[in-house]
């Protein structure tokens, strides 16, 4: 149920964001979504790709420091209160969200959010018990292919 997310360390200077994305594109790997957290000095680029093992190899070979994290994709109703409902479930279970970002793709009235938890397995159990739809890699990538 968990997705593999690649994170890269980038210096915050012109051209640094483009380079890893070009490297992935050159390897024929399609980028599903990305999120960038940055400070004035450096940034952390987080990527979701289907061929994460290949992408990781490509990036590491090109000299980037790559970190692999398990994240959870959740299908939410794309309407007011959709996210609030999920957050309430997580909050009452005492689960801490490190960060979250939206998947770039929408399906019908659903939006997909990527969550980074300390404990993804427990989060999945809690989300499912509350009737929320956790999207696995196969399902996620089948929609974008």
């Amino acid at each position: 149920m968990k997705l593999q997310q690649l994170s890269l360390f980038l210096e915050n200077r012109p051209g640094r964001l483009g380079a890893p994305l070009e490297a992935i594109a050159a390897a024929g790997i399609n980028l599903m979504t990305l999120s960038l957290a940055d400070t004035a000095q450096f940034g952390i680029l987080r990527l979701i790709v289907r061929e994460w093992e290949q992408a990781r190899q490509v990036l590491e070979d090109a000299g980037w420091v790559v970190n692999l994290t398990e994240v959870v994709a959740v299908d939410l109703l794309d309407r007011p209160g959709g996210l609030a409902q999920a957050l309430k479930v997580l909050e009452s279970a005492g689960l801490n969200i490190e960060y979250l970002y939206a998947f770039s793709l929408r399906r019908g009235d659903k939006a997909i959010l990527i969550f980074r938890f300390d404990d993804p397995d427990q989060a999945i159990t809690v989300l499912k018990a509350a009737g929320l739809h956790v999207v696995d890699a196969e399902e996620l990538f089948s929609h974008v292919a």
Partner: protein
Amino acid sequence: MPASGFAIENRVFDPAETLPRAALEALQLERLRDLVARVSEVPFYRDYFTLHDITRRSIRSLDDVRRLPFTTKDDLRRHQPLGFLAVPRREVARIHGSSGTTGRPTFVAYTAQDLKTWSGLCARFLVAGGLRPEHTVQIAFGYGLFTGGFGLHYGVEQVGAAVIPAASGNTRRQLDIIHDLAPEVLICTPSYALTIADGARELGMDPRSLPLRFGHFGGEPWTEDMRREIEEQLDILAFNNYGLSEVMGPGVSGECAARNGMHLQEDHFLVECLDPETLAPVPEGEPGELVITTLTREAVPMIRYRTRDIARLYREPCACGRHMTRMSRVAGRSDDMLIIRGVNVFPSQIEEALLRVEGTTPHYLIEVDRPGTLDQVTVKVEIRAEMFSDRMDRMQGLRERIAREIHTVAGIRAEVDLVEPRRIERFAGKAKRVLDKRSLSDG
């Protein structure tokens, strides 16, 4: 350490240690004049003496040492092996060598009398730092070309205590020996003392419960922080000593019961503290490079050997009764010292700070600039996979921890820049450590 009190009973091994200043200086002068005569057949010195018309009669006061040439590590290397020998080869009783990052060791020789002098000088600081004939001492220094093991070994014997020549390494075995033989005293590098404490904890032992009571540590620069750490972790008193193989080995100086600087054995070494740039003496108490002239060494006497070690000298009398000048801890090396807003900073200190945060030293570069009137330091640190997290709070925390450790260790505020791997230029495989962008003119 209160100035009035002693950590342990104050005892003197050799009456020469408490010679009044005037008698000490008279002895130094006499020995310095003899030295000039003794080295006059060593090619390196002979050429200089001939050119500058120097004989023993040129030395009328101790200040006249400044008429003599400096000797550097490079000079020693150029005259290897044993080009500085001042006695016939048959009189050599032992040969040690200094390790170096540059490959082949620099050999140093000792006559039988040199070895006797050396063990006597080690005995002085050992006794000053609590060693008694009834004690058992574990020496966890390397025994070999390195002067630490053998130098201290014979020093301990000279005192009449029992030696366990455990040699370096194999922490488990060191702990077994400590457990079985209950030595009161440990001799090793300060960092190895902490390794032993760690090793004890890993084996489920409380390092404070070990029978050790004192430690004599040297062979590498360390800090007061580290002393507190060692004393706290092992529940011992830790004493500092100093020496270098080029002039003898350990025993050049060591702490007394007051633990307020290391007494230089000035009846055997004439020590200057010089500005490494101008080579002029620095005012008392100011940091400078120690330049050492061996007054009694027979096999390879050294004239004004530039140690590159930076320390401060204090000449005021010590509560222990010795009149010998005290030296501070070695604060670093003159060859890579930076002065940041008046604070002397060494790349090794930045390295130590990174080591404390990271457990290993990543590639780093110290950039110094002076955008206005104040120096600004940026330490660039190459990110490694083990340091990297996808979480921003962790990464910010890492930067802050590095900056805090740099402040603790080096006493300066530095901006920490995390940079991508291989962003710091390497020169011939070695990373460049310092980039000083400050303009040399003050205009």
